[in-house]
């Protein structure tokens, strides 16, 4: 624990940057850009610092900073980070500089950057806040910049997509808000009112109550994840959003859902989570298969990637509710992996769009011949998304599956087929886009530019490194996951099953 309020800085720095950009004169665009890049890089630096200073032996929350905020409602500015949120914070920190530096809104740079930084602040906040009210504040505030990013800088159907996204998510959070308040008041008893996560987690809810509350939370997160059948906002939003928006949306924002399910759903209401697990497992598996099949049939490359997210996130949900240390760790890790590889995919699709001004798969052909390096990078990212061993996508997926197999065998057996389908839709798309002889429209397809390479290089690096050597990550994730599972075991009769021949 260090005295410097680094987590608070993680929120404040981007906020300050956003305001600065907003008020900065419009006549000096290059300065505006510079400020934005610097703030985001600074934030990234801070997050890396957190990663470095993180004590992996300590499963509890670290860097905690706690200040009373709204006294009469027992709300406090309570930030903390543990293995589950650590890498999400780092991911957020790293993604934004890439997006800000690497993508180009074609108009109104100033407002775009300002929204971006605000978005970063919101996301950071939601990942590190340990107060339900505070979390909700960030969770909601995130919608606004994203709404404006989609509606302001998106493609043809942007307003529809943005509105759909906003309202869809808001319905969920509306119900969650009631859930949050109810939780606080029911847990309160005679004591003082508090929204503090750790305090509330100590409370015991009557099963029926706990289940209602859990669902109030779960709906909001299910929308965010998204879990079938609440996913239909996602393809539109991802497709219509500008490249940067899609990257953040897929790379970071969806994780709010899975993270929330883990941190607030399972942690606060273990009994309810256990009780309803079969529902969630089923939905997760449906999501995996359904998303993959829907992705296969898309004619729009970006839409295809969007649907692939539905499938990938399904794995995470499966892992969370299978509730073994492997599956949950795998899920947490898959959060990051999906963030990196799908983020990279959206980058690449965006680059294709910038070059060809179309996302139609049918319009593209034989790009590998004219742009081999571009194709190579795409290939690597794609393979990681397919889950080929040696790349990051595999590790998370594999851990989820092998862990889930212990508690949810048949769901896992079905879910594993998603691995086949992933290969199907991605390879098919790749063949249609990159293989074959390029027609004259694609013959002039430019090769990967230096700036683009600079953006993609770190992502590819992470993809390969994590794939080959996930241990450092797992070492930091696992203790917190185990603590969570112990918490569940304390609250319920649940005992984490161990494979035969292993003494827990």
């Amino acid at each position, binding site marked *: 624990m260090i005295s410097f309020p680094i987590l608070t800085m993680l929120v404040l720095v981007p906020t300050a940057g956003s305001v600065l950009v907003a008020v900065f004169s419009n006549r000096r665009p290059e300065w505006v850009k510079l400020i934005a890049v610097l703030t985001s890089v600074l934030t990234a630096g801070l997050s890396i610092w957190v990663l470095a200073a993180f004590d992996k032996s300590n499963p509890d929350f670290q860097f905690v900073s706690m200040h009373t905020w709204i006294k009469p409602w027992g709300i406090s500015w309570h930030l903390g980070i543990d293995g589950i949120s650590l890498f999400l914070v780092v991911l957020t920190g790293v993604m934004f500089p890439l997006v800000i530096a690497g993508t180009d809104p074609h108009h109104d740079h100033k407002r775009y950057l300002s929204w971006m930084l605000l978005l970063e602040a919101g996301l950071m906040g939601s990942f590190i806040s340990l107060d339900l009210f505070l979390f909700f504040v960030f969770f909601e505030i995130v919608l606004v910049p994203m709404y404006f990013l989609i509606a302001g800088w998106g493609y043809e159907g942007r307003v529809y997509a943005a509105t*759909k996204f906003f309202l*869809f998510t808001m319905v969920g959070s509306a119900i969650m808000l009631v859930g949050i308040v109810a939780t606080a008041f029911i847990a309160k008893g005679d004591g003082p009112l508090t929204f503090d996560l750790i305090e509330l987690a100590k409370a015991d809810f009557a099963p029926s109550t706990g289940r209602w509350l859990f669902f109030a939370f779960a709906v909001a997160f299910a929308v965010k994840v998204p879990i079938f*059948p609440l*996913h*239909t*906002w996602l393809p539109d939003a991802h497709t219509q959003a500008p490249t940067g928006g899609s990257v953040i949306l897929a790379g970071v924002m969806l994780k709010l859902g899975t993270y929330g399910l883990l941190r607030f759903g399972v942690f606060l209401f273990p009994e309810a989570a256990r009780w309803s697990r079969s529902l969630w497992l089923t939905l997760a598996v449906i999501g995996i298969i*359904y998303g993959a*099949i*829907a992705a*296969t*049939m*898309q004619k729009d490359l970006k839409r295809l990637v969007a649907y692939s997210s539905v499938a990938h996130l399904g794995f995470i949900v499966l892992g969370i509710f299978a509730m073994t*240390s*492997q599956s949950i*760790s*795998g899920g947490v890790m898959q959060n990051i992996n999906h963030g990196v590889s799908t983020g990279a995919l959206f980058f690449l699709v965006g680059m294709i769009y910038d070059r060809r001004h179309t996302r139609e798969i049918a319009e593209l052909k*034989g790009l*590998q*011949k004219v742009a*081999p390096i571009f194709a190579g990078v795409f290939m690597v990212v794609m393979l990681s998304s397919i889950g*080929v*061993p*040696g790349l990051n996508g*595999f*590790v998370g997926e*594999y*851990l989820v*599956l*092998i*862990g889930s*197999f212990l508690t949810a065998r048949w769901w*896992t*057996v079905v879910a*594993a*087929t998603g*691995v*086949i389908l992933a*290969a*199907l839709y991605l*390879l*098919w798309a790749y*063949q249609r886009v*990159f*293989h*074959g*002889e390029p027609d004259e429209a694609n013959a002039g397809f430019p090769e990967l530019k230096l700036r683009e390479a600079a953006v993609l290089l770190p992502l590819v690096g992470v993809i390969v490194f994590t794939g080959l*050597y*996930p*241990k450092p990550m*797992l*070492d930091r994730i*696992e203790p917190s996951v*185990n603590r969570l599972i112990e918490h569940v075991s304390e609250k319920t009769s649940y005992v*984490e099953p*161990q*494979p*035969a*021949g*292993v003494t*827990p």
Partner: protein
Amino acid sequence: MLDVAWLIPALPLAGFVLILLFGRQLGDPKAGWLATLMCGAAFVVSVGAFFDLLSKSAEERQHISKVFSWVPVGSLKVDFSFLADPLSITMCLFVTGIGTLIHLYAIGYMHGDPRFSKFFLYLNLFALSMLLLVLGENMLVTFVGWEGVGTCSYLLIAFWHERESAATAGKKAFITNRVGDWGFMLAMFFAFQATGTLSYIGLNDAASTMARSTATAIALFAFLGACGKSAQLPLYFWLPDAMEGPTPVSALIHAATMVTAGVFLMCRMSPILNAASPYASTVIAVIGAATALFAATIAVAQNDIKRVLAYSTVSQLGYMFLAVGSGAYTAAIFHMVTHAFFKALLFLGSGAVIHGMHHEQDMRRMGALRKVMPITAATFIVGWLAIAGVPPFAGFWSKDDILLAAWDKSPVLWAVGLVTALLTAYYMTRQVIMVFYGEARWKDAHAEHGAHGDFEPHESPAIMLVPLVVLAGLSIIGGGLNLPFNAQTEKLTLWLEPVLGVHESDTAKVPFAAIATVAALVGIIASIMIYAKHRAKPFEPKVLANGWYYDAAVSRFMGGPGREAFDSVAWYDSTIVDGAVNGVGRVVRGTAQRIRKVQSGNVRNYAAAIGVGVVLMLAWFVVVRGSR
């Protein structure tokens, strides 16, 4: 040398990295040489390791070198470590050995290709993955190699990706393999749940106490994986298409090494198979035999020089699984090795032919090539004799072992094997005749095919011939590895015994050997009668030419009902699910529009509405509440 067993995969890795970084600068042919060098170095190290192992006593021939702790989560502790034991080292030896030869050959074959360096990049990557596969200490490391080779084969089949057929073939191979991988994964899951470990040693130790049902599950799912990788029924159909790749690839990946991974895996897990017997082993044996016969019948009617070999590969792999199923693991490995020799030889030979014929692959356009390319012809003929099972060539001995084991399992299997042997001899003879004997049909054919001017088939450069000769030699003497005269001559069996155990059988060997030989000869003679002497019409029905329409049926299903099903899901998503969402919005608007009519702007209507409200209010208070 064992302590540095990690060098074996590390060297190709180094090659991979170097070519990745400097491939373009090195270019043609330096990149090729570099790759070959690395592969060769790996071979040298393997040899060293082999002798280290040899120097130890049979029990201690097992060395685990841990590189780093890989995926440690809870009770799942997987290290990235290698297991050097007779089996894996044997595999290493012939993988790296043959690999090197084929690298060498490829330098010549790929000469002048625009993506020359990339080809060797992939080749080294393949070598790396294959070595991980065989050296893996646990199923997960093997799986990495397993998927790695799959990916490489995808990349290499689709190497000439401008060709639509090549791209499709690559995709097909990958996805079909994925189906197998699904089985492999489930096998791992079952294994983990049953034993809490994934390391082979742990598993095989646990096998003795394992419930038969569990063992069967593991074995069968693993076998599903093997079917994908080793092109067994029902997942074989990707292999013939894989011939779209450059011939060295076909030789290395789709004949000698990768496709045998399935057999290797089965042998690796032999204790579990034993624990799962009889069910699992029977299934394996039956499927193996069936595949062998099935593929052989198809090969009879192929005209593409490489497709014949492809089907024969499938058929030979079936042999190996027959052996595995019959519990004769050593026989399987033995045949794997000899097959690697002569099948690689045959493929390289065909490659040389194709190369000399300017990428003509249709055997009906060949003939009498022995005059223009004598060395190729000679070596090819050696390979032919070897695969046909003519003593004393390598194939004879290994095939004999398998048939023997099959007899112990069940005479039916043996019979199937025998017929297959006959057919093999038959179609291989047919190929040799069509390519190297008879009249030169290419003379009149060259007009229409894209060759420049009037062309003359020519012998390949030395760099391509050297591997041919070496392999030919090996195909001749390969049988020496495991001569069934007495216990001492069965070197391979002794060598592998600590890992695979021995398959003792008291059946008399000689009569079976005789029968097998006769069968082979019958096949050969029949073929000669038909194709050389034209005593009878060639028997090449369409159904066989089209591989019993199996592949066609699969593709038609995928393109037809399968696709429609997928489309319907997409439709459902966009119409029903999303429609429901938009429906809510529409409902809200609709209601609002209806209520708007009440908001008519007319004071009296408003007053009336208020009045109604008042009446309702009074009714509640006076009637409902006031009645108490």
